């Protein structure tokens, strides 16, 4: 088991003919991801590396049975791509696109919330279930199959955390980069809920940063509901207070958002917080030990495909 994606995921890439769409399609495929279709309006009928390209997601789903999408459509068309993925009733849409206007995203989120499609992102590295399926732009080689779930608002900092985990023998069940935009699909809690009920996931590492109140919300949810040990890191302890305009931001977060506040709240809720970005792996190990669990070895997963490095 894992969350969101596995060996059985059948992927459609929206924006497959674009430069980064094509590049990452090839990378994901090399990892073993089952990419069954691409979508680029106006280019339906062609094949790319043997992958059939369709004009619409709906058509791609009907012809190939795709159940998850990866979106590389540029900002002006990305919201339409998200709405189309929801309309086609996919299980999951991962939107990599960076720079989508907030006004458009508010509308997209309102539609997506009511659909059966889960959304990860936008402006995120994507999702990977090591050894099985990679749906995103993260470097594959740092990941190892295992039992730690990873959820993060950050991109490259997640790679740093995953590398530290892998280096000390803690493989991952699934890693989810939820993205750093103000309006996103799945939030920390949505991912934590899935990890909580996933049999393969034995512990969770969470990466947050300054700003907003999402880490605090997650902390309180963890205290109430989480049955597995959680460790975390919050970036920005030494970030100077930035210039700001007006009061609305401070009113809405109730003055939260500082790294110290987030770290304190997480610790109060039983989360082991790494005091340095060099000790993220150690913090996970400590949380496992505190929960009476030995450092889990990378899971021998017979279903796992050979990862192509």
């Amino acid at each position, binding site marked *: 088991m894992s969350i969101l994606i596995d060996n059985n995921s059948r992927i459609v890439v929206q924006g497959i003919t674009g430069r980064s769409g094509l590049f990452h399609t090839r990378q994901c495929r090399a990892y073993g991801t089952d990419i069954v279709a691409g979508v680029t309006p106006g280019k339906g009928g062609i094949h790319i590396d043997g992958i059939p390209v369709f004009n619409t997601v709906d058509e791609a789903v009907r012809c190939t049975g795709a159940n998850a999408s990866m979106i590389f459509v540029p*900002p002006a068309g990305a919201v339409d791509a998200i709405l189309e993925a929801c309309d086609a009733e996919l299980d999951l849409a991962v939107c990599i696109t960076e720079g989508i206007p907030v006004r458009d995203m508010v509308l997209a989120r309102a539609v997506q919330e009511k659909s059966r499609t889960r959304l990860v992102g936008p402006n995120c590295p994507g999702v990977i279930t090591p050894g099985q399926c990679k749906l995103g*732009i993260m470097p594959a080689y740092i990941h190892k199959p295992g039992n730690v779930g990873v959820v993060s608002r950050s991109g490259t900092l*997640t790679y740093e955390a995953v590398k530290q985990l892998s280096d000390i023998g803690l493989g991952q069940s699934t890693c989810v980069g939820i993205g750093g935009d103000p309006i996103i699909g799945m939030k920390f809690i949505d991912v934590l809920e899935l990890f909580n009920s996933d049999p393969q996931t034995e512990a969770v590492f969470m990466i947050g940063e300054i700003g907003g109140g999402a880490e605090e919300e997650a902390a309180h949810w963890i205290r109430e509901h989480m049955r597995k040990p959680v460790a975390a890191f919050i970036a920005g302890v030494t970030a100077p207070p930035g*210039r700001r305009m007006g009061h609305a931001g401070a009113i809405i977060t109730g003055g939260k958002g500082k790294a110290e506040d987030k770290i304190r709240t997480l610790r109060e809720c039983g989360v082991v917080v790494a005091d340095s970005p*060099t000790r993220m792996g150690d913090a996970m190990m400590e949380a496992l030990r505190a929960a009476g669990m030995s450092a889990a070895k990378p899971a021998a997963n017979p279903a796992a495909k050979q990862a192509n490095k």
Partner: protein
Amino acid sequence: MNIHEYQAKEILNAFEIPIPRSRVAFTADQVERAAKEMGGHCVIKAQIYAGGRGKAGGVKVVHHPEQASEVAKELFGRKLVTIQTGPEGLKVRRILVEEAVEVVREIYVSITLDRQSSRYCLIASAEGGVEIEEVASKSPEKIHMLTIDPFTGLRPYQARRIALALGLTGVVCEECVGLLLNLYKCCLEKDCILVEINPLVVTKAGRLLVMDAKMTFDDNAIYRHREYPDMLDYSQLDPQEINAAKYDLAYVKLSGAIGCMVNGAGLAMATMDVLQEFGGEPANFLDVGGGANREKVAEAFKIILEDSGVRAVFVNIFGGIMRCDVIAQGIIEAASEVHRSLPIVVRMDGSNVEEGKRLLMESGLNVQVGETLGDGARKIVAMLGQA
């Protein structure tokens, strides 16, 4: 992207939201003339990209044009340090001269993004003015919040409920309903992530008037508004930050000696955190973007080295699928061009990492390779100590 108070008021006015009579001025003479037009008794307001101006001496009431000129001479060119500017403050280059209004009540209204609900949110309080954040933390019940359904938009009955909760009655209440609806319209059409009126006042004559306004546009939506780039006041931005923005780099100048170049905002912050853990002080925050390429790395390097306070550079690139040899070439190119033989530590991860390291070591630059984040931070602090 931020704009000035006077620009925000002009936009609000275009959405039929009433603002006081006013004029923007760039010289003391212009201030004096504008004050004369207002009849002498008026308010002189420094225009900077931050709030908290009143308490910092940036807003003054004057009674005759000569006094207006004197106040203006004091303000122009002065650096205002307010609670929202950070310690460096912001220089005053523009002044708004505004008619003085007799005020009965001060109200707070704003529309901003609520990340938790993924919606725009209307915030209002009967206790507007400079202490609004204190009101929010001490008496949250005095803050009214409404999340706006994007399908229905803000409805008149919802706006009326807010207006009544603010204690407004009769004509002013209905006026406020119209104002709130227009405020939401403005927020959407102008792609704002913040529109804030604080205070919105009820005048002695029983009218609503915007006394102060802040507006922040969504950077991702600037492409839809051709007029926005021309509205920017570059005097309010750090020159290096402007330069960085041209290359799509996020740069914030800080006061330390170690220049930092990192890909990704989270990793950039974590890098600053770890430097300070080892006793180093970062000279800047610089995010070259998740998928940095050779050109970006080279530009970033130049921007870092333009800061004369920089005495060492720490590069932390977690490339992944980005090729490290290409990144290394970018660094070598930029470093050779600027002819400053500063100590450099490069920590890279990604494909072709060994080739990247070899290129750096054979470049003749004063460079060391950090094997891990901690190792890199330790090395750069040590090299700075020996330099």
